């Protein structure tokens, strides 16, 4: 499913114009992004939690050349599926 398909589904479900729903989805996404940027967890009941994880600096290897490279510390977004979602997807 792509953004467009998601927008279609929501617009249809709620009887709203697609244009409006599109604006809202963009706003929703940017709101989540900004929360994560501020190191805030985003917890969506029924779905899961988006968190930011800190990754330590480490020494990695270029698999092609075998050279060691220093990988700096960084932060990465993570998603932890919630219980409901985990159950829902067991077919």
């Amino acid at each position, binding site marked *: *499913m*792509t*953004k467009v*398909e*998601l927008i279609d*589904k*929501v617009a249809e*479900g*709620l009887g*709203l114009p697609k244009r409006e*729903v599109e*604006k*809202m*989805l963009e*706003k*929703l*996404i940017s*709101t*989540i*992004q*900004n*929360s*994560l*940027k*501020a*190191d*805030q*967890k*985003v*917890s*969506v*009941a*029924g*779905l*899961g*939690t*988006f968190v*930011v994880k*800190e990754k330590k600096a480490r020494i990695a290897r270029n698999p092609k050349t075998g050279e060691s490279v220093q990988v*700096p*510390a*960084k*932060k*990465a*977004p*993570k*998603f932890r*599926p919630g219980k*409901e*979602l*985990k159950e*829902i*997807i*067991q*077919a």
Partner: protein
Amino acid sequence: MEKDNPTATKEKLAYKLAKIGISRNHSRQIVDCFFTQLAQSLRRCEVVNLVGFGSFHYKIRAARKGRNPRTGQSVQVPAKRVIQFRPGGRLKSMVRKPEAKET
């Protein structure tokens, strides 16, 4: 990092969305609808790709032998589906910078 930083919930997302100029109730409903559709799509085993944010995939984790850590008994853990989230470029780059005030 979590101590002073309240978790954002659907409620808060809806509150922010309402600033576009729709009612709180309405925006709550819309936020819910987005996430429900997302979950349902995952349930149909689709890949959900939201450009700029990330994509949700699922993987099948093979059955394995596990152990009850309390009793030491070995148990068979069945194969199951697990969701994987791959953050998109924009989200990754927004979040990337490590905290300046590190110990």
